[in-house]
């Protein structure tokens, strides 16, 4: 397979075909919790993109240069990755606070929340153990492939989060059956969006 085409497939697969929120159900808590306003959704999406890219790079390096050569990856990968993510988030927070206060104010509250965002751990795990991944392109990602994959996942997360927030803002003023007010109607919207995203299945044979 052509090199560039493979990167394109990984990216598209992560972004749309196996969209992390609607098709794979990872990280639904922020989808329901944060997506009430477009502005906060954009903040969350940006922070996730940032942290996810860094944490995947760090986990990929840890897996390929420390865990795998020492043969301890199988039973230590969960604690190692989660510690990497937690400390990276803490570090990023401190760094941004010093380096760029406006940016810190913009994404401040979302940063600590990201530690428990399952999407970050899922992306880190799948970047090194793509056996979980149903994409039939390359197993054992190289570092650039892992990065392309992660950016695709993060952009897919942001895309859906912002779409969802736009719909929910409109929903505020719509007549909704009493029992469905609030979270239940949000889930119905998610069902419809998910149905729409299923249309991407088998796109380009991925």
């Amino acid at each position, binding site marked *: 397979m052509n090199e560039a085409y493979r990167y394109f497939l990984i990216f598209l697969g992560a972004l749309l075909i196996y969209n992390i929120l609607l098709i794979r*159900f990872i990280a*639904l808590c922020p989808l329901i919790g944060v997506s009430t306003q477009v502005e906060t959704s954009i903040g969350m999406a940006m922070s996730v993109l940032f942290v996810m890219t860094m944490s995947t790079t760090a986990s990929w390096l840890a897996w390929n240069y420390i865990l795998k050569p020492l043969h301890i990856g199988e039973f230590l990968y969960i604690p190692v990755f989660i*510690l990497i993510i937690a400390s990276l988030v803490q570090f990023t927070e401190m760094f941004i606070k010093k380096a760029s206060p406006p940016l810190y104010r913009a994404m401040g509250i979302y940063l600590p929340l990201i530690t*428990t965002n399952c999407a970050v751990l899922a992306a880190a795990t799948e970047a090194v153990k793509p056996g979980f991944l149903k994409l039939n392109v390359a197993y054992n990602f190289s570092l650039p492939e892992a990065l392309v994959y992660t950016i695709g996942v993060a952009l897919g997360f942001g895309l859906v989060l912002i779409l969802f927030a736009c719909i929910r803002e409109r929903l505020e003023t719509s007549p909704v059956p009493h029992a469905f007010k609030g979270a*239940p109607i949000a*889930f*119905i919207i998610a069902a419809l969006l998910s149905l729409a995203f*299923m249309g991407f299945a088998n796109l380009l044979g991925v």
Partner: protein
Amino acid sequence: MEEETTFWHEFSKGFILENPLMVLMVGLCSSLAISNRLENGIFMGVSATFVLVFSNVIISAIRKWTPDQIRIPIFIVVIASFVTIVDLSLKAYFPPVYERLGVWIPLIVVNCIILARAEGYAYTSTVKNALADGLGMGAGYTCVLLIMGFIRETLGTGKIVLFDKTLFNIAPPYNPPAIFILFPGAFLTFACLMALLNRYKMRKTDE
């Protein structure tokens, strides 16, 4: 006598009053993703309950020696150890189940239910109460998983298959819409369950 009632109280609140999925709305991702079969619900429920109970007990037992500033990393390490136990045991004894549950087993670490109970409950209560709380929350979680799994498997495939045995099959006259075992079905089922619960609550307040 009084101790028994509190144990029962801590246990039972996880079912309805503070049901982690329907009321607290935490840990949604895993429950929606794997509830397309009843069998998945059983395994996932048991795994999460195991992690929940043991991490609750350990965290509550070491709470007096845990420095406040670094409590979150400590919680995560405790939880991650138990998740690793579940991860490896399932892989060794139930490979097909492990394959189906896939990334959801490692993701129990970041399942908000467990961290929320550790931070919000176990860290400030006695070992016994933490044990009851873990059991109750786990049971409440498993309950919802089983209901969702039952509805979705019945509607989506027309039959229930449990441990390679078909419990019942209504397929021939009934043409099952596969949408229920696919992704949108999870959202739809969950939305309807929540709406039902809301309706029930509104009735209660009206009376």
